[in-house]
């Protein structure tokens, strides 16, 4: 066997290298040298991000087991940038006395899940896809349980692993049915063989559960609020952005690459799930008092909006999806960044605790407001553009009713985003959160997110770049 072709998998190999270096450093580094652990990790990871941000030509490895198209570089770069921002936000959290000795694990586990997502994105075969999915899920559980003295964290981890395993099992069952009806697991061969027979439809439905679970779409979303609430905030933001972002991209590519002949079967499924996700999540979000749970429901509804891009199945939809994930990443990480700073310093996550925040912490409130406006789709912030493009991609295919329902939901979502803005800017409080100092890494991360939210929309270069490599049915 020719192993040299493995060297083409640049992204995976360099990420693996970063992981191994960090692991060795963490195990063998002296007490004194470990002071530099976090800066080294950040530098290595930034180098990895920069090295792999230039698209190459498409290729396949191992007979189509692994395949690469230029678009994947963009997606992986978005994931890298998101992970980098999460690392910056977690910097202070990992310097706590309780977490200091475990920070090597934090980086190693996070990067393992990232590696899993890489393989999931680049897989050309259901086997590799499944390995990727599992590599992304299992270390995630340990991360959710990272706060080991906190009962909620442990409970969240238990919930996560049980639901994740269950979803994977159903998904695996779907794959076995696919193999049973076609005799192959390679994506390239499946496109022709999957014609939408009843058994294959069933296979699709079972298979897609695994991804729907990862994207946390209704009705596979029940784990989301509890896990988001229990996990350490930085893990929550990782879960809500990176894990979700990779899964939606994979869902889109699978639908257009593997199931192109089953459009009539998967479109109604997505149609229903999109409406259910957006509506249910919005209705539940209104009642939330805990900001982490609130953002959990908000992220479920955001995932529903992404489905509008997927359902179009066009190149336009592809571009809009990747763009949406990018904008969503900046907006959500900014919101979670503020929540994590405040939670880490004061332990407060209730919406009422945020009353009068603008009086004491104007900068944090403004960042939070920009993030929420972007999530709500208010111009001139990038969220407006990403929402518009997603709607336009769906309208392009004639889904006007779906667009209309989604738009009505944006009004509900605007209501609950405004509730947080109202708490920070309008409500008065007897004892507001005191003036906080934000550590430099977190500050950098918030500035990055804010710049992203402001510039990605107004400057069209990024969207046009993504559009160059989009493909459709």
């Amino acid at each position: 066997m020719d192993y040299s072709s493995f060297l083409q998998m640049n992204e995976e190999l360099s990420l693996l290298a970063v992981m191994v270096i960090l692991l060795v450093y963490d195990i063998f580094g002296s007490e004194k040298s470990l002071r530099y652990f976090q800066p080294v990790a950040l530098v290595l990871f930034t180098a990895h991000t920069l090295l792999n941000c230039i698209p190459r030509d498409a290729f396949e490895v191992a007979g189509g087991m692994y395949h690469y198209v230029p678009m994947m570089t963009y997606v992986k770069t978005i994931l890298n940038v998101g992970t980098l921002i999460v690392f910056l936000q977690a910097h202070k959290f990992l310097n706590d006395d309780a977490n200091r000795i475990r920070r090597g694990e934090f980086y190693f586990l996070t990067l393992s899940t990232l590696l899993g997502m890489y393989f999931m994105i680049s897989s050309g075969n259901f086997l590799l896809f499944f390995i990727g999915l599992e590599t992304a899920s299992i270390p995630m559980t340990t991360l959710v349980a990272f706060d080991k003295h906190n009962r909620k964290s442990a409970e969240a981890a238990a919930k996560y692993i049980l639901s994740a395993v269950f979803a994977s099992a159903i998904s695996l069952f779907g794959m076995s049915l696919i193999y049973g009806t076609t005799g192959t697991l390679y994506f390239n061969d499946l496109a022709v063989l999957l014609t939408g027979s009843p058994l294959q439809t069933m296979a699709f439905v079972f298979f897609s559960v695994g991804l729907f679970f990862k994207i946390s779409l209704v009705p596979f979303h029940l784990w989301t609020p509890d896990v988001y609430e229990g996990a350490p905030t930085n893990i929550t933001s990782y879960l809500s952005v990176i894990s979700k972002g990779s899964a939606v991209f994979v869902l889109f590519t699978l639908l257009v690459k593997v199931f192109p002949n089953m459009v009539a079967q998967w479109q109604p499924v997505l149609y229903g799930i999109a409406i259910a996700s957006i509506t249910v999540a919005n209705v539940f979000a209104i009642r939330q008092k805990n900001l982490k749970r609130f953002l959990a429901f908000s992220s479920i509804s955001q995932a529903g909006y992404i489905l509008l891009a997927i359902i179009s199945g066009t190149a336009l939809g592809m571009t809009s999806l990747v763009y949406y994930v990018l904008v969503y990443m900046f907006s959500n990480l900014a919101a979670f960044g503020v929540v994590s700073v405040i939670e880490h310093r004061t332990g407060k996550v209730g919406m009422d605790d945020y009353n009068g925040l603008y009086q004491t912490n104007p900068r944090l409130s403004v960042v939070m407001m920009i993030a929420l406006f972007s999530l709500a789709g208010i111009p001139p912030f990038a969220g407006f553009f990403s929402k518009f493009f997603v709607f336009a991609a769906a309208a392009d295919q004639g889904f006007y009713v779906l667009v209309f329902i989604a738009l009505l939901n944006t009004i509900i979502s605007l209501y609950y985003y405004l509730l947080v803005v109202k708490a920070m800017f309008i409500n008065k409080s007897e004892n507001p959160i005191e003036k906080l100092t934000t550590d430099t890494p977190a500050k950098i991360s918030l500035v990055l997110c804010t710049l992203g939210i402001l510039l990605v929309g107004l400057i069209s270069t990024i969207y046009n770049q993504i559009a160059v490599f989009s493909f459709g049915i």
Partner: protein
Amino acid sequence: MNILSLFVLIPVLMMIGLYFSNTRKQIQTVTASGSTLLLILSGVITFMYLTQRAAGDLSEMLLVADTVWYAPFNIHYSVGVDGISIAMLLLSSVIVFTGVFASWKIDPLPKEYFLWYCMLSIGVYGFFISTDLFTMFMFYEIALIPMYLLIGVWGTGKKEYAAMKLTLMLMGGSALLLVGILGIYYTSGATSMNVLEISKMSIPLSAQYFFFPLTFMGFGVLGALFPFHTWSPDGHASAPTAVSMLHAGVLMKLGGYGCFRVAIYLMPEAAHDLSWIFLILTSCSVVYGAFSAVVQTDLKYINAYSSVSHCGLVLFAILMLNETAMTGAVLQMLSHGLMTALFFALIGMIYGRTHTRLITEMGGLMKVLPFLGVSYVIAGLASLGLPSLSGFVAEMTIFIGAFQHTDLFHRILTITATTSIVITAVYILRMIGKIFYGKVLNSEHLKLTDATWYERVSVVTLIVVIFAIGSAPFWISSMIHESVIPVISQLPK
């Protein structure tokens, strides 16, 4: 760079300037100079427009510029003006200018207040200069969201409720609008979202029947179309003075302008066939708004309901679909914008002194506040349509245009709408009589002082413009008239 883009750029620069200013003095300098610049700029633009027209340039839009923005969606940043947008830009500049002086001593957080105020004006100006559907929609939404915080933080009364209601209802309108815009673009088969280009395409009739009501209602919500007007009284009553001015004076015109420019211009057949539904609704606005104003006792509520009535008249006139009435509609937008801004400015000044807005608690103020009193009377007379003031010109043109329809349906609605003139006289005269004449009800009121210099700047500017339009309306109405013709020529005979 195109000169029209300055309308967006100057407020952006003002925002940057505000970010770095710390004292009230600096804030006032930045906002006053910025808004004066905008006023001068709109004068220059008007002059450029008129000279180009006089030189024989007959193209629909002048001073056009076009840059590709998002190529995959054919979204362009394209700007251009015709007579109607010129009128609207003049109106916006006057009101932004006077609004700055009306909120000269705003408290608390003057810096944040003006930051939002500038953002609001970016939206307003951007909307009027855009000729691309996407850019138009974007500026429309930019203009909406600052309202929430402006009312929520600096408002009075049940401000949180009013702010939320206003924002959600207007955003609801924009949701309808977005479906309409996407539908127009994709069914027309045009290769760009430019209004001028889409107007040359023909949208299939079945699609028009679906998207015209969505678009018209979407803009109609902002134009206080009955029954979607309920945000307006609460919103205007709770908003701080300058925000009420800008909102009633300019923002509500976005609705009328959008109905005209997007809904009717791009979907003329549907407009012709479906106008009757909306005509009924708008005549409801006209009469219902006027009657509601009669029973209110809060000055701001009176003026807010009066705005519903007057803005209803704008939409009513647009739906008459003939040259005279449409010209009248634009004149009415101008006239109503100016006089309602004057009203809100004066109400704000009176409230700042008496700390009440209830007409039952005031009386005889003319003796104490002669300047404010006389100005208030002038505003009132403009509102009820006294000749030589702007209101007369506008309403006259509208009703002459409306009477050109000879069928029974239009006649009945026209006569119904005309009654609003009488009802307007009732509530205006009642209000003026109660608060300015008769005995002083509260001895505290005898100690009040009349307008300060910055208040006078704002009031005098508005009065001068109202007089100017009222006594010399022809240059402006002919400018509007020639820009109405392209829209009329699209309509089926």
